[in-house]
C-alpha cells in the first residue's frame, strides 16, 4: 500500500477527554503537547475506526457494460473489453480509469439475488435480505452506524449524498430506531434552515432549545424512549453540522479535484462524499439515479458509465493518497444487473440472476476476482452469492464478526446478516 505523509482522518478524532488527559499529562511532565500526543495517536490508530463509502447506482448498472463484459457473444452488446491492471482481467471499455486501478479492487461476478423489481429490490439488497423474523431490518448504512458508532468526529454516523431533496430518512433504520436513520444531503447541500435565522439572537436560540428539551422530556416520560431519542438526536445532529459548515463550502475545493472527479452531478456528489468521509463520518452513501436503461441501454451506458468511472477512480486515488484505504470499505453496486437479452427498445431489463459488485479497501484482498458467469453471461457458473453473503463479507471486512455479533431488538437477539449465508473467504484479506 502506498504510504502517505498526509495526516489521517482518525488523527483528528481525539476525544475531548483524551485531549484534556494528554494536556494534563503534558503539563505534569513539563513537556510539550506534541511529544505526549503521539502515544495517544498510536492508541487511536490501533482502534482503526472503520468507515464505509457506499456508492449506489439506482435502477441497475449493466454488468455487461461494466464489470463483466462478454464481447462478441450473442448478448455482448457493441462495446469492447479492455485489459486491466490485474493480469487476465478485462472490464468494459467504458471504464478505462478503473481498469488501471483494478489491482486495488475486489470484484465479485457471481451475485445471484432473487428480486427483479425496483420497489422490493432496493430495500431487499440494502437490508441484506435477512430471514423474515417479523421485523424490518436496517439498511446497511444504519446497520454500520449502529455497529461501528459515530466515532469521535461529532458528525452523524450515516450521511447520504443524493440528487434531489434531503432530510432525515428514518425508514432506513428499521427496528434499530429512527436515531440510526440517514441524514440525506439533497444535492450535497446542508439541510434547509440548518443555520440560526439572522433575526434570532444566539441567546434566544439557546432559550428556545432549552424550552424544547424540557417539553420533550416531559412528553417522553410516558412514551417509548426511541421516538424521543430520535427527535432529540435530530437537533443534536443539526447542532453538530452547524459546527462543520466548512464541509459544505465548495469554494475551498481545488479546481484539480473538480477536474479529477468530473464536473458532473455525480462527480460533485462523490467529492462531497469524500469530504465527509475525510471528516470522519462512519458511513457515507452516494446515490446516482437514472440507471434503469430499459431503452437505448448502450448509448445510455456510453454516457453514464464513464462519468462513474472517472469519479470512482478519483475516489480510490484519494482514499489511498490520504491513507484512508486501509480503514475504509468502498462499495459500488445497484439493486440488480441487467438482462443479457436485448429488448426492442435496444434496452436491457432487470436481471438479478448473474451480476457483479465491485469493492475495495479495508479487509479485502486487492486484485481479487471472485466467481464467474458463463460464456453468454446468462448464469453464474459455480457458487452463487446472494446479498446475504455480501453482508457477511462486508461486516467481516469491517472487523465485525457476523456470526457472533447480534442486534438486541428490545431483548430479542437478531443476527446481523442472513443466518444461512457466510462470508466469501476468497475476497477477504
Amino acid at each position: 500500500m502506498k504510504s502517505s505523509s498526509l495526516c489521517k482522518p482518525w488523527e483528528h478524532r481525539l476525544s475531548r477527554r483524551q485531549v484534556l488527559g494528554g494536556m494534563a499529562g503534558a503539563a505534569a511532565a513539563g513537556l510539550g503537547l506534541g511529544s505526549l500526543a503521539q502515544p495517544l495517536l498510536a492508541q487511536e490508530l490501533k482502534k482503526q475506526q472503520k468507515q464505509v463509502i457506499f456508492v449506489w447506482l439506482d435502477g441497475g448498472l449493466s454488468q455487461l457494460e461494466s464489470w463483466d463484459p462478454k464481447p462478441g457473444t450473442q448478448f455482448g452488446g457493441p462495446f469492447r473489453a479492455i485489459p486491466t491492471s490485474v493480469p487476465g482481467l478485462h472490464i468494459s471499455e467504458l471504464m478505462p480509469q478503473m481498469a488501471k486501478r483494478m489491482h486495488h479492487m475486489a470484484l465479485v461476478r457471481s451475485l445471484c439475488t432473487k428480486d427483479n423489481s425496483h420497489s422490493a429490490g432496493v430495500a431487499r439488497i440494502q437490508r441484506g435480505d435477512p430471514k423474515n423474523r417479523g421485523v424490518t431490518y436496517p439498511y446497511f448504512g444504519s446497520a454500520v452506524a449502529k455497529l461501528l458508532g459515530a466515532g469521535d468526529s461529532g458528525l452523524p454516523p450515516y450521511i447520504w449524498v443524493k440528487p434531489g431533496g434531503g432530510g432525515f430518512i428514518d425508514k432506513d433504520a428499521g427496528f434499530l430506531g429512527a436515531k440510526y436513520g440517514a441524514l440525506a444531503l439533497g444535492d450535497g447541500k446542508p439541510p434547509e434552515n440548518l443555520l440560526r435565522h439572522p433575526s434570532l439572537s444566539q441567546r434566544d436560540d439557546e432559550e428556545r432549545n432549552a424550552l424544547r428539551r424540557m417539553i420533550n422530556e416531559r412528553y417522553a416520560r410516558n412514551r417509548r424512549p426511541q421516538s424521543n431519542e430520535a427527535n432529540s438526536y435530530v437537533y443534536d445532529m443539526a447542532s453538530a453540522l452547524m459546527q462543520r459548515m466548512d464541509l459544505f463550502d465548495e469554494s475551498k475545493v481545488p479546481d484539480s479535484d473538480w477536474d479529477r472527479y468530473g464536473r458532473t452531478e455525480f462527480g460533485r456528489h462523490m467529492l462531497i462524499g469524500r469530504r465527509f468521509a475525510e471528516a470522519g463520518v462512519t458511513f457515507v452513501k452516494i446515490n446516482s439515479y437514472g440507471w434503469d436503461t430499459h431503452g437505448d441501454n448502450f448509448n445510455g451506458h456510453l454516457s453514464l458509465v464513464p462519468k462513474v468511472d472517472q469519479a470512482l477512480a478519483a475516489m480510490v486515488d484519494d482514499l489511498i493518497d490520504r491513507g484512508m484505504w486501509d480503514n475504509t470499505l468502498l462499495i459500488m453496486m445497484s439493486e440488480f444487473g441487467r438482462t443479457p437479452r436485448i429488448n426492442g427498445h435496444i434496452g436491457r431489463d432487470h436481471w438479478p440472476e448473474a451480476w457483479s459488485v465491485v469493492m475495495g479497501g479495508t479487509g479485502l484482498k486487492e486484485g481479487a476476482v471472485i466467481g464467474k458467469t458463463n460464456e453468454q453471461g446468462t448464469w453464474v457458473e459455480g457458487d452463487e452469492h446472494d446479498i446475504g453473503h455480501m453482508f457477511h463479507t462486508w461486516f467481516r471486512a469491517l472487523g465485525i464478526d457476523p456470526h457472533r455479533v447480534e442486534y438486541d431488538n428490545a431483548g430479542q437477539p437478531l443476527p446481523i446478516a442472513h443466518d444461512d449465508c457466510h462470508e466469501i473467504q476468497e475476497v477477504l484479506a
Partner: protein
Amino acid sequence: MNEALLKRYKPKEQAVLSVPETQMSLVRFSGDGQLLLTAGWDGQVHRWRLGDGEPAALPAVAGHGGWVTGLVCHPSQQMAYSADSWGKLQAWDSAAESPQAAWSVAEAHDGWIQCLAISADGKLLATCGNDGFVRVWNAADGKLVRELPRRPHPVYSVAFHPAGESLVSGDLLGKVVETNLADGQEVRTFDAGILFAVSRLQDVGGVRYLTFDRDGKTLAAAGTIPSGGGTVQGEPCILLFDWADGKQLHKVVLGPKNECYVHELILHEEGFIIAVTSGTPGSGRLTFTIPGEEKPFFVGPNTLQNCHSVALHPDGQRLVVISTSRGSNGNGRPLKDGKYLGNHSPITLMELGAA
C-alpha cells in the same frame, strides 16, 4: 391526395425473413436490387438473393467484431461496405458466394462507428463514431481522404449531399454541421438541439439519422425529443430543413413519447416520408407521413413493432423493414423449454401499391 398516395403506396407483405436469435440493426438493397443485406449484432452481414420466388439465403459475411453498425451498397457496382462497433471498416464483393474483404481498415475509429454513408457516385465513404471523429474514405481502396476536427461528443449520423460537394454530420448535442468536401471546412450548422436533453446524469438523444431528398433540396434530421433518460422516452421527431437557406421547414412528430426514436427514414420523391420508429417494447411503427399533416396516412400493422431500419428497393416498388420479435422485453428469467432465448429481428419485405 392522401387516398391517392395510400392507394399507390400501401404496402403488402411479401415475405418475412429472419435469422434465429439474431438481432439486426440495418437493412439495405444492393445497387442492382438483386440482393438484400442486413447488419447483424452477431458481427455478420446476412444476405439473401432476391428473385421471383422466396428470397434465398447466401452465406453471411464475417470479419467484424461487436455489432455491424454501418452498411451501404455501391450504387452501380457489386460492392458493399460495412462498419462495426469495434471500429472496423471493410469493403467486399456483395454478390460473391463467400466474400473476401477487398480492403479493410481495422481501426477506422476508436470503437463504435455509429454511421456509414456512401456518396451518390459511389466514390467516397463517410464514417462517424463515438470517438467524435468524422472521416472520409476512398471507396475504391479504403484510403483516408479527410478527417474532420474532433468533436467532444459522439457523432451519430453522417450523409453526403446528392450533389457531392457537401457532407453533413449530426452529433449528440443536436448540432448538424455541413462540411465542404473539397477543403474540409465547416460551411454552416443546422440546429437540431431539440433532439437532445440532459436527464440526471445522462445525455439523451442526439441526431440519430440524416438524409436528403433525391434532389438535395431538403435535409432531414431525425431522433427523439427526449423527455427522460434511463428508459428513454420521447416523441419521435424529424426536422426538415431547406437546404438552400438552412431554415427549418417542418417539425414532424410521429407519435407519443413511448414511440421514442425515429431510427431511419426515406424522403420519398412524391413528397412524403417513410419512417420507422422504435420505443417502449411493443411500440414503434412503419409510417408514411406528409410533412405538415397532423397524422401519418399509413401506419404499419402492430406485427411490425420496434422498427429499426427501412430501405426502398431501386425499383421503387418494394420496401423492407427490420422490426423486433414480439414480447421482446421482460425482467428476470423467461425460459422456454429450459433455455434462455434472445430476440430476433423479422425482416419484412413488402410490395408497394399491391394491396
